[in-house]
């Protein structure tokens, strides 16, 4: 099968890979590049566990072909901490007990980051809407909503 070259930045680092045409970004990140923070829960765009940020927008990496990401800037949960210090969203998820099995957590954090990047002080309804594409089967939604609201408050306090 013909290989296709693809280059993009992942969490600020340049990556270049030859992939099989048709490979999803999820499989390219996990199997070729070794970033396993996006999870494959359904491989059909319904659970949100594979969510990543591509050029500032929330995307399902299981429905995104890697070859369409040439030149893109991709962010995953693995790249959020800076200098060993957790991102405020990661800290908030930790502090509000917003994880149980943890499988949905990286996708939840991606969805929450895009929300806060666009809407620094969201309402509770806006948080719920932003997370509506991410399934938590442990059904720990309330602490997750609280984590996002807490991270938003921390952001606004830092800005003030």
């Amino acid at each position: 099968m013909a290989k296709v070259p693809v280059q993009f930045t992942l969490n600020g680092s340049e990556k270049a890979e030859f992939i099989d045409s048709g490979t999803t970004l999820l499989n390219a990140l996990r199997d070729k590049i070794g970033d396993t923070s996006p999870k494959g829960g359904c491989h059909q765009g319904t659970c949100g566990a594979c969510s990543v940020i591509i050029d500032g927008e929330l995307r399902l990496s299981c429905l995104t072909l890697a070859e369409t990401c040439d030149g893109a800037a991709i962010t995953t949960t693995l790249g959020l901490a800076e200098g060993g210090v957790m991102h405020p969203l990661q800290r908030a998820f930790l502090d509000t007990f917003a994880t149980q099995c943890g499988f949905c957590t990286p996708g939840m954090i991606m969805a929450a980051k895009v929300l806060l990047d666009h809407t620094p002080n969201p309402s509770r309804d806006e948080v719920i809407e932003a997370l509506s594409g991410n399934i938590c089967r442990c059904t720990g939604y309330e602490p997750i909503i609280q984590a996002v609201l807490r991270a938003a408050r921390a952001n606004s306090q830092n800005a003030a």
Partner: protein
Amino acid sequence: MELRKNYFADVRKDDLHEIGQPRPRSDSPGHVTGKTAYFADRSFPGMLHLKMVRSPHHHARIRSIDTSEAEKHPGVVRVLTAKDVPHNVYTILILIQIGPEDETVLADGKVRWKGEAVVAVLAETERAAQEAAAKVRIDYEVLPAVFDMEEALKPGAPLVNEYHGQNYYLYDSGECRKVRFGDVEAGFAGADHILEQSYQSSPIEHAPTETTGCVVAPEGNDRFTCYTNTQAMFFTLDNTSIILQMPGSKLHFVGGTVGGGFGGKVDVIVEPIAILGAKLTGRPVCFIYSREEEMQISSPRAAEKVVIKDGVMTDGRIVARKVTGYTDAGAYSRHSPYGAQKGAGHYPGPYTIPNVWIDTYCVYTNRTPSSAMRGFGVTIGDFALEVQMDKLARLIGMDPLEFRFINAYRDGDMKAHRQPTEGAALIECMQEASRVANWPVAEKYMAMSSYAKGA
């Protein structure tokens, strides 16, 4: 949250310093940074992908299996059928002497439910495995199927599982698990009211976000390391050892964080065939359920039917209870004989009833085999019992919480399955619930205790 320490203050030390104090979860930093390793986060060079060819029929005889086209498909390394499995007929609970072995790893001559594994295809890529699986030709003779438990128990119903010989699990007590306590018919005869109701539930899928699977790596020392999301590590290790006729010392199971289980990952399903594939090819193998397989193939909670007949007095005492419970095991036992047995012990509920008669059946049908899920054997029973309690209270015009106080078991009461009640604390829990929910009950109930009868 308020911690009330006044209950049972005289029977325990006041050393509950951890309750009410937040402590960080040890696994949470890994979860929020994306560093937690789940089984599927491991991959190995040259890893093969396993895809299963499954029965499209609920019940059928297999006339022939032709894997020749699949074997020729580019990328296919090995195709496995029943004859490749050293000990193909197994049952999980054989480890605790609950037999007979009644399930095939790969179907041999017959399929008993729609989705049953028949042929395993190992290929270089997931796509090649999928395409080759579609080229396996299986000739079936479709047989009559039965999907309803009561139909399955009727004479002349299609026989689901020949290893049992009848469509129910044969306990040492006979066709059902039985509890007999007092004289239930005398109880009914003396009751002011009789209420008989039937309750039914459908199968429930756990639907964890991480699907069932494992990754197997053959090691240089002739061992196999199996990274798995099983919830039942030692059941899986020991059953794999039996199925593959391989000493446990050759098997290195690595568990760890499970991406949601809820009881759905206690069956021994993916590991034996993946390890067999690794053994026969010398290559690492991954076998990971698709979302469709997780929803359609993995064991759900059993469908249940519970028929409850109660005799109750106008003063609120339940004087007799007769329960017939049916647990739909699907085509194979897995954990269901145990689930049905648990129900037998549980159906009186947390209530003291002097005359009890319970029969619980574990029934085989041509449905997806059911197994464990969060309190299986008692959860559906609790739903039925507590709805029944509300109906009984309404029948005699009594407050439903006060009705439960009257019947609550207390320390020293003999339960129907002959276990004396100890450490019940039900009265105290209901007293606290009454306060917190602002559902007041008469003062005499607030003065009751789990210790002293006659209040």
